[in-house]
């Protein structure tokens, strides 16, 4: 068994995570964590839907930002996908998607302020990078046959529209609809930095311990996501897309001089701005690298590796919940509800909740990342096992799980896990804003001190780290010959 490369890779990652645990700061620091958790669940079962008159507006804004952001990201992503074969385009796309929506929002807040454009761009830019990659993969896999039978002299555009697009259309539509769900999550968390979406009210209610108010918001959010197949209909889409820009809220007017100032002054490293030249730049940069970037990178990597393995373990435990090889329809239904809840709750919100309840350490972040990502992978793998036909005289219970199903889905499980590696790291970095000492903590500190030059360097470091992990993840998947479809 140990000679199998997939098993060996798994064990290496498991070992790294176990070593990481020795370095990680894992503790529950609150005096009554279970009582707080109990109060929280009490709040969820006694939701107060009438707490804030802003709640419905916030939901509307959340949907509006998601639509405008995802649609603009989709259009730009599609155009980029057409020229994706050029290396600079690929690098550009890898770069913009390596920066988390919240970091983009924090950047735009500095010069657009609380204008709707801040929220729209924060979603559209990273999504454009992701769309470009996935659309180009879909286009590449299209069957070349229809193109060959076109009469000679057919124009490129005509050939593309009539021979390529029809073959890809369903896949692209499915993926775009899926991204819209991700967009709703992204849109909701933008509220945590002050945009008028759900996160704004969720943060306010939570930090004051108003769990019934927070519970109501979470329930409404789950309902919104769970009912998407009902209200996102092809015929209604044009109405949503055209209407959404009008529901982004007023915000505050943009002062264009601020944009220029940001790029020509704010983000220029302080020594250069003050005229100390390159001699001043080196000490500035090395101070930043040693005191902030290095500890940030270390904590980000440690947390990512532990969360990755925790996600893997949780996915393997979770998939039987919805697999039709175990239990009856009632238990499977409950399993579905549970997995919908864990995967619909953004990691950021889960981590925020757990941090409030357990106190600050890496533990809430690990649990949040594992719950959300484990929910997603568990769902995908569970669905996959349901399509497997077992012999009617096959083993039952644990033996069926460990000897029949897990070996059959293990490769695609690993494929999903390595695909999500980079996503987990991107989230880990951002969780620093909540007070865990990953890269996001130092980015947030720099922004709090109005030092955008330092913030930009640290965001750049974060992006490079993500690109590195993305590359490594792809290398391992290729090496193990694992295939996957994209998830968000």
């Amino acid at each position, binding site marked *: 068994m140990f000679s199998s490369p997939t098993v060996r890779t798994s064990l290496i990652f498991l070992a790294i995570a176990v070593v990481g645990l020795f370095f990680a*700061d894992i503790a529950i*620091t*609150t*005096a*009554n964590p279970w009582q*707080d958790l109990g109060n929280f669940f009490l709040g969820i079962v006694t939701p107060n839907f009438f707490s804030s008159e802003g709640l419905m507006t916030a939901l509307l804004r959340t949907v509006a930002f998601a639509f*405008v952001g995802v*649609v*603009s990201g989709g*259009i730009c992503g599609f155009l980029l996908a057409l020229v994706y074969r050029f290396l600079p385009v690929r690098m550009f796309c890898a770069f913009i998607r390596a920066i988390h929506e919240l970091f983009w929002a924090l950047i735009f*807040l*500095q*010069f657009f*302020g*609380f*204008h*709707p*454009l801040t929220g*729209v761009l924060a979603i559209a830019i990273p999504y454009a990078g992701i769309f470009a990659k996935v659309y180009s993969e879909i286009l590449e896999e299209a069957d070349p046959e229809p193109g060959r039978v076109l009469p000679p002299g057919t124009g490129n555009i005509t050939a593309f529209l009539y021979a390529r697009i029809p073959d890809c259309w369903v896949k692209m539509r499915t993926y775009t609809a899926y991204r819209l769900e991700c967009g709703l999550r992204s849109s909701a968390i933008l509220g*945590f*930095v*002050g945009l008028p979406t759900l996160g*704004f009210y969720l*943060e*306010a209610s939570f*930090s*004051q*311990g108003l769990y019934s108010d927070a519970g109501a918001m979470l329930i409404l959010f789950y309902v919104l996501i769970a009912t998407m197949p009902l209200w996102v209909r092809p015929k209604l889409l*044009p109405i949503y*897309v*055209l209407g959404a*820009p*009008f529901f*982004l809220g*007023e*915000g*505050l*007017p*943009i*002062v264009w001089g*601020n944009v220029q100032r940001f790029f020509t002054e704010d983000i220029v490293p*302080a020594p250069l701005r003050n005229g100390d030249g390159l001699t001043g730049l080196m000490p500035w940069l090395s101070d930043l690298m040693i005191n902030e970037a290095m500890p940030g990178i270390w904590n980000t990597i440690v947390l990512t590796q532990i969360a990755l393995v925790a996600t893997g373990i949780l996915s393997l435990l979770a998939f039987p919940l919805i697999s039709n090889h175990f239990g009856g329809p009632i238990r499977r239904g409950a399993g579905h509800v549970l997995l919908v809840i864990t995967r619909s709750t953004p990691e950021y919100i889960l981590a925020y909740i757990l941090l409030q309840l357990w*106190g*600050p350490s890496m533990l809430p972040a690990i649990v949040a990342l594992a719950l959300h990502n484990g929910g997603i992978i568990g769902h995908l793998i569970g669905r996959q096992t349901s399509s497997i036909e077992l012999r009617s005289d096959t083993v039952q219970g644990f033996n069926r799980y460990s000897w029949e199903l897990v070996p059959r889905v293990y490769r695609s499980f690993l494929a999903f896990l390595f695909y999500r590696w980079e996503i987990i790291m991107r989230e880990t970095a951002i969780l620093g804003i909540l*007070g865990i000492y990953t890269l996001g903590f130092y980015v*947030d*500190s720099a*922004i*709090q*001190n*109005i*030092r955008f030059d330092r913030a930009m360097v640290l965001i750049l470091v974060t992006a490079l780290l993500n690109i590195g992990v993305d590359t490594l993840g792809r290398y391992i998947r290729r090496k193990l010959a694992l295939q996957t479809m994209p998830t968000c």
Partner: protein
Amino acid sequence: MASNLIRKLVLSSVLFFTTAASAETFVFTAIPDEDQTKLVERFSGVADYLSEQLNVDVRYIPVKSYAAAITAFRNNQVQLAWFGGLSGVQARRLVPGSEAIAQGVEDEAFETYFIANTNSGIKPADKLADLKDQLQGKTFTFGSKGSTSGRLMPEFYLRDTFGKKPEDFFSRVGFSGNHTRTLRLVEAGTYDVGALNFQVWNKELGDGSIDTDSVQVIWKTPAYPDYQWTIRGDVNERFGEGFKQRVTDALLNLKDPALLESFPRSGFIPASDDDYEPIRKTAEEIGILD
């Protein structure tokens, strides 16, 4: 579809711009140093009062961080702000012409209280140095990273007294986000020790919402200047001659006891940038300001 969307987007951003420009709303913000509900209640009251006094539309914008308040002020999206000592210094450095116009009566001599969970066994003392053995290795929380009473002054006294960075002196250092959170976290025992704005402590104590069996004050800092109203230098050009003076007068004449109680301040008195020199020096000393 694409062009339509872009047209709508451009159109709507133009609309935002024109409505805001023609109505000339006077917008202000405040650092989010306490619970959101309290802030909205307090500052919507101030907005109504100012609107009545100044005969213009006045709007309060809630923000999620101290930096967001400073940035909105710097970007001229708000023209007036209720800043802390440090955020005010930062904002005025970034906006030439802006100035401090009023402060609370209590802000001339503001204090930070160090509070401890009673289970930590830490006993109150008059000198911070006397607490060295009791504090060393405990867990500690500041308020917001950009707070004067919740971060700058406590960090200054910790470094000054113990000769170490807080992270090296305590076993765990956190940033709760605001003063109310600091109080709740220390009360609950999440952190052994915390530092907070003395006015928040006194108000919560007066309201009977502190469990005094769980948390107590262990040390008080010497006095320093803190909160103030800071206004942009270009408001007269936008809102008419003498507007800055009218805002100043309105704030100094604010006598509504309920509104003052919500701050809580007993009244507002004139302030100037020079009052905050000690804050600027302290911030430079611990490396928060370049």
